[in-house]
């Protein structure tokens, strides 16, 4: 659905749900996953409904995702790093 205006730049590779994803250096996790046509970055803790990034500027918390084993990370505020392991967040983050 989304098309990069400028497809040049250094490539960064990370994983989403165990699949290898190619991003550009400087992409946020949310931008990289939207460019890759990911669906449902998380499942709502209230209704279980699939959710996608919305505001892309850190205020709506729709893009919460699990990064390197830690939940409730804001995909739109986190820059992709090589080897990052990203997973869909299913429901609320649990610490216990």
């Amino acid at each position, binding site marked *: 659905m989304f098309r990069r205006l400028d497809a040049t730049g250094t490539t960064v590779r990370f994983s989403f749900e165990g699949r290898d994803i190619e991003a550009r250096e400087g992409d946020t996790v949310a931008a990289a996953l939207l460019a890759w046509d990911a669906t449902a970055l998380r499942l709502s803790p209230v209704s279980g409904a699939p959710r996608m990034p919305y505001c892309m500027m850190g205020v709506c918390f729709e893009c919460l995702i699990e990064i390197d084993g830690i939940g409730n990370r804001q995909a739109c505020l986190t820059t992709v790093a090589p080897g990052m392991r990203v997973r869909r967040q299913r429901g609320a983050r649990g610490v*216990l």
Partner: protein
Amino acid sequence: MAYDLIVIGGGLVGAAIAWGAAKQGASVALIDQGDIAFRAARGNFGLVWVQSKGAGMPAYAHWTRTSSELWPDLAATLAGATGVDVGLRQRGGLAFCLSDQELEDRAALLHRMHNESGDIGTRILDRAEVRAMVPGLGDRVVGASFCPIDGEAHPLYLLRALHAHLLQLGGDYLPGRTVDAIDAAPHSFTVRIGAERHTTAKLVIAAGLGSRDLAPMVGLAMPVTPLRGQIIVTERLRPFLDYTCHTLRQTVEGSVMMGDSQEDAGFDTSVGVPVLQTMAERNTAVFPALKEASIVRVWAALRVMSPDGFPIYEQSEAFPGAFAATCHSGVTLAGAHALALAPAILAGDLPERFTAFNSRRFDVPQA
């Protein structure tokens, strides 16, 4: 037009009394200062807490219990009328102890309260018992006290629901008003706000820290002072706690709130890292997994404290019809304020059970 009752103070104490009176059919006005007020009601932690309330004052222990018993009726009535669920959960409350000395002191306090004011089922849990009830406790937890009738509610929803239903019941909410003066005569009061005049047969001063200056206008004494409390709120987490804890609770939405700091800081409502750090350290000693949780908000608010920390309820002797109402537990006591105190005020007489709350107790010279 003259009202049956004017309440000065639109926080939890004033709103509960105004609502309780309106529900009985009285014509009521609730005068509220506005966003310049300190508004303890908007910084509240949200406990409906019984187990440790009223050591040294059985009347307060019993009053707190009464409120806890009336709370379900309050919550159900508000939900039915306004659709606002105030999040009341009375599942029992735990106060964790992190040393043998703390556990001994806690046991002694509860034993004394049991002897003074009766059994409410509070018991001391040892290391193994508390772990059988609550998963995820840290090694430093040596035990806890547990009271089956303790609980919690959402203070902001409560305030909103009380205000909303008061309006539905025909009450007048008059915000953005600072009372300049009160012309007092027995059973007749005129509240002056700029050029406005509001007349009433009964008047309640429930203006939190503002009560100190208002009370003398109608022959009452409310010598209250601020006591700062700070609160930490984490991101929303999967529910892990089946009980309310004295310094920690998980809201219905999943946020974990930590609280119960107490500082004499005058009217300063700023937060400070040393106190927040102490709160976080203690609560992560109880639940080490919370070290992983992100903090999303902190705030400070001012409790309204009388000299002995107990509530003040009394009717003015010089100007009958004027009443004082103040406490630092506006959530816990909301049930009693709405459904027991308000009817007594409307009837014009505070029964025997309120005698112990008279401010005359502060006039006794200390030995």
